[in-house]
């Protein structure tokens, strides 16, 4: 079993009348158990800047971790450090839209993370009627070209492509493919219709979309917003189940 520990030491000789010295070590385990956590993002480092426009008005938040990528309500932990040495520079840390606080130059934080996601939009595509080799169906910028006229083979081809914003589920022999959004969102991924896929068939083949599920926004993505548009660097680490 992997052993991951987090130790904090807080010291001050002059904040109080007496000396303050606090040390605590936590062995990071999965939720409600004594089993060590097993996954981590590894330590990452990124420099912000080059915004459009590259002025204060162009500052945008960086998404550190998307809740939908992790299991909710576990014993996840997040570490973030502002490596800036300019005292006035800070990152504002948000969970979803809630402002947690500011990390000034040199500051770090370590916190649990609920990773509460929203609902990922989903729909089902059914390959039906008469298709021919060479027929195409385009969705999410990806074009599937039928290798033959076999409907379940075509469904399998749809499943085998890599869509930038969607994942797919298909069972061998079936003519249906379930598309699921990679990220929970209610911004644009709402109910999908057949018209969202572009079909070009020599026959009367169809690729109807049904059983659409509207997405809802993620509830705890972690974002940080730099205070200046010039370069600022942060380091981050996620330990998760």
């Amino acid at each position, binding site marked *: 079993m992997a052993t991951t520990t987090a*130790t904090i030491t807080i010291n001050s000789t002059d904040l109080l009348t007496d000396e303050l010295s606090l040390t605590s070590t936590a062995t990071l385990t999965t939720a409600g158990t004594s089993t060590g956590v097993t996954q981590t993002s590894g330590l990452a480092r990124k420099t912000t800047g080059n915004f459009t426009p590259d002025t204060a008005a162009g500052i945008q938040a960086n998404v550190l971790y998307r809740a939908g990528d992790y299991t909710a309500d576990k014993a996840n932990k997040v570490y973030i450090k502002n490596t800036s040495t300019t005292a006035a520079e800070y990152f504002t840390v948000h969970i979803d839209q809630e402002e947690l606080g500011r990390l000034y130059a040199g500051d770090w934080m370590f916190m649990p993370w609920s990773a509460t996601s929203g609902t990922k939009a989903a729909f089902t595509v059914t390959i039906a009627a008469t298709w021919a080799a060479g027929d195409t169906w385009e969705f999410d910028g990806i074009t599937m070209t039928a290798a033959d006229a076999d409907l379940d083979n075509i469904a399998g081809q749809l499943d085998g492509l890599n869509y930038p914003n969607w994942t797919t589920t298909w069972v061998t022999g079936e003519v249906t493919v379930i598309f699921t959004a990679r990220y929970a969102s209610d911004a644009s991924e709402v109910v999908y219709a057949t018209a969202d896929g572009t079909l070009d068939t020599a026959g009367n083949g169809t690729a109807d979309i049904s059983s659409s599920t509207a997405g809802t926004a993620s509830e705890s993505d972690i974002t940080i917003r730099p205070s200046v548009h010039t370069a600022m660097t942060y380091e981050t680490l996620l330990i998760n189940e």
Partner: protein
Amino acid sequence: MATTTAAVTLTSDLLSDNMSVTASTTCMKAGTTADGLDQMEYGYLDLVTGDEYDLIGATPTVSKASKLYLKNHSTDETYFIAITQGTQAIGKLYGGDWMFIPADFHDAAGEIAITANGGTNKICYALFHEGITLNASA
């Protein structure tokens, strides 16, 4: 000025190579390098299952560099406290876990609350700040 340092060490053998991350910061007032946080609130409490507790009874000055340390001293790994800020869930601290976060308490809805689960959780907290507004007496 008061000088308070907070250091963290993260170590793990869950990767192919050992991981060790260390960081240390001197807790300064917002935007300064010469003036440390000089005020502190500290507490230790037993929190019964289901009880929700507003961690900070006063309102620290907003948008500053306040730091909040919170530890669940429970020894039962199934016990945990759920931490929220306003209506936003932050996460859960299980028995033995701690957290250290910047906390700017931007408005009344930004207060941090904890709720005990599993049993009576033993909680320790410390807030380092640069000024608070006392809440009006009821």
